[in-house]
């Protein structure tokens, strides 16, 4: 029986050591090879002082090393923190400091980002995947570090209430927050996902989503749990590459976000696509337009389509059983197995069908809280009916129908969802205010057919400023991940103000229409 997340790997490897665990480009690894690597990494981390509960950051692209590092850290008793490879230096530094990571695992391509931090953080140990043996001072070659390590799992003292991971997510308050999940909460939700997605050992799960994003991460966790195969790709950027992989590797599960599905449908309209082997298509991160339900079936004629909703704070909230997609094409369904959801009014009473309320979530999948952020935690976790119990308040607005099926209405904060990624307007505004010459800045999400929402910045500049739209984008790009950089910049003599002197975003929104 698996009590800890890493037990799922040890169990699968013990039962099916020669089955293919992972395909990443030309690399194919069996469960035995994956486990051997993870165990060697665990020993190498322990030799560098990693103890039970220590955080270890992974700053890598979607590579096989990234996937395996997650298990290596867990086997060492550590807590894994996967950082998106697009992250810029300042934010990486923030996450490393905030999580107090003891070790950073990274790769040569990203040396340009993390390199200068090595000197600034003398207690941080850095292991770098690299074919080159010459690395800067303070950076160890990962392969060399693993070379003489044993392949037996180290002794474990972790229990299921210990943290397994911190997943950093953007919030409306600016700096990203580390969502704390224990082994117990992650294993619980993993079993629930596998149950309703009806995954089997013979499945081949595609992962083009970043492993830093919980939706991508759980493709790996689910594959290992069921003994299936993960087909890991770096990105959906070059769709033809993914089309080839879908066919050549016999992918059966295709997880995507609306932007990916919009690109697929656009490609399909130019030249018809058909992937008959795919059995399940899943969507989350942003609402899937209802007309995609039927259009996607042309591309995936034999697939069940799952409309889902979730947030990192509990991983997944709901799913629409695929049999219901004709009857309830707009719904994101019902609570995932073993959990409960409630749509409550301002007085905490359940709303009647059709009325709008706030969605609350109850179950063992709810996070422990935000790392070192008790106030922000209290904003999300509310007392439940049982002593000590805490419900997750999503702060998202929903309705339910007569059968109890959920319908997403909107958010109550000003978070922008672009390409399925959460973007804090405050985080972008903070960077804009840091640019010399900008006097005022405000950021909004505007509708975009491909992205869901695009980032739009309104700025007013100093009288002597010669800043151009391109320069502002460039300076944002130096500090922000590409998806956060404003797609549009509008210059105004001054930004509209509300009575209390704050920027009036409603007035800005009105200017757009």
């Amino acid at each position, binding site marked *: 029986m698996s009590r800890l997340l890493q037990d799922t790997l040890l169990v699968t490897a013990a039962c099916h050591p020669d089955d293919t665990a992972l395909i990443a480009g030309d690399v194919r690894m069996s469960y035995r090879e994956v486990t051997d690597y993870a165990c060697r990494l665990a020993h190498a981390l322990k030799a560098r002082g990693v103890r039970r509960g220590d955080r270890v950051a992974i700053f890598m692209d979607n590579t096989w090393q990234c996937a395996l590092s997650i298990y290596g850290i867990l086997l060492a008793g550590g807590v894994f923190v996967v950082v998106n*490879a697009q992250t810029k230096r300042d934010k990486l530094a923030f996450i490393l400091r905030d999580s107090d990571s003891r070790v950073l695992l990274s790769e040569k391509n990203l040396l340009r980002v993390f390199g200068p931090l090595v000197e600034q953080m003398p207690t941080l140990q850095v292991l770098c995947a690299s074919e080159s043996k010459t690395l800067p001072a303070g950076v160890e070659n990962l392969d060399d570090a693993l070379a003489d390590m044993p392949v037996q799992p180290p002794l474990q003292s972790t229990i299921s209430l210990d943290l397994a991971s911190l997943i950093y997510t953007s919030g409306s308050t600016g700096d990203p927050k580390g969502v704390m999940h224990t082994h117990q909460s992650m294993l619980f939700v993993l079993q629930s996902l596998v149950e309703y997605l009806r995954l089997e050992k013979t499945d081949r799960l595609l992962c083009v989503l970043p492993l830093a994003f919980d939706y991508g991460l759980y493709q790996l966790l689910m594959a290992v749990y069921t003994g299936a195969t993960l087909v890991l790709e*770096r990105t959906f950027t070059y769709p033809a590459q993914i089309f080839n992989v879908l066919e050549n590797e016999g992918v059966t599960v295709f997880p995507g976000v609306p932007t990916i599905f919009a690109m697929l449908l656009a490609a399909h309209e130019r030249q018809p696509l058909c992937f008959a082997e795919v059995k399940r298509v899943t969507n989350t991160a942003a609402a899937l337009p209802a007309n995609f339900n039927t259009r996607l079936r042309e591309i995936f004629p034999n697939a069940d389509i799952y409309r889902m909703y979730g947030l990192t704070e509990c991983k997944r909230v709901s799913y629409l059983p695929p049999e219901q997609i004709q009857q309830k094409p707009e719904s994101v369904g019902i609570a995932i197995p073993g959990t409960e959801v409630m749509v409550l009014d301002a007085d905490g009473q359940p709303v009647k069908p059709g009325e709008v309320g706030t969605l609350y979530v109850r179950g063992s999948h709810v996070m422990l809280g935000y790392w070192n952020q008790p106030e922000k935690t209290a904003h999300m976790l509310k007392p439940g009916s049982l002593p000590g119990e805490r419900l997750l308040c999503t702060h998202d607005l929903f309705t339910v129908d007569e059968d109890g099926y959920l319908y997403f209405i909107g958010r109550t904060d000003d978070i922008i969802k672009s390409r399925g990624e959460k973007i804090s307007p405050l985080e972008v505004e903070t960077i804009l205010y840091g640019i010399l010459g900008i006097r005022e800045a405000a950021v909004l999400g505007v509708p975009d057919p491909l992205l869901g929402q695009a980032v739009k910045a309104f700025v007013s500049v100093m009288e002597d400023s010669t800043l151009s739209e391109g320069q502002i984008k460039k300076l944002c790009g130096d500090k922000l991940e590409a998806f956060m950089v404003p797609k549009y910049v509008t210059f105004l003599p001054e930004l509209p103000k509300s009575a209390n002197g704050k920027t009036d975003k409603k007035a800005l929104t009105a200017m757009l229409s």
Partner: protein
Amino acid sequence: MNMTMKNIIRQYILENFLFTEDESALQYSDSFLDTGIIDSTGVLEIILFIEETFDIKVDDNEMLPSNLDSVDNLTEFVQRKQAQTVAA
């Protein structure tokens, strides 16, 4: 001709994705993926750009890193496409 095409493509990437005119910011052989310059929606913009600028048509099955993932790859790809058009 080649240098011109290469420069046009590089200039487009610099202006639209790196927001700079500094040519040293992008080598001809730099992988867009490795350097984190371009994401999945960015590649659609590049395709639109090369289709319009060089009068070619990119098929879906050509949206591969070997064709599109650096200024060098893009230049060679566009030249191959143009040669095909002429031959046809």
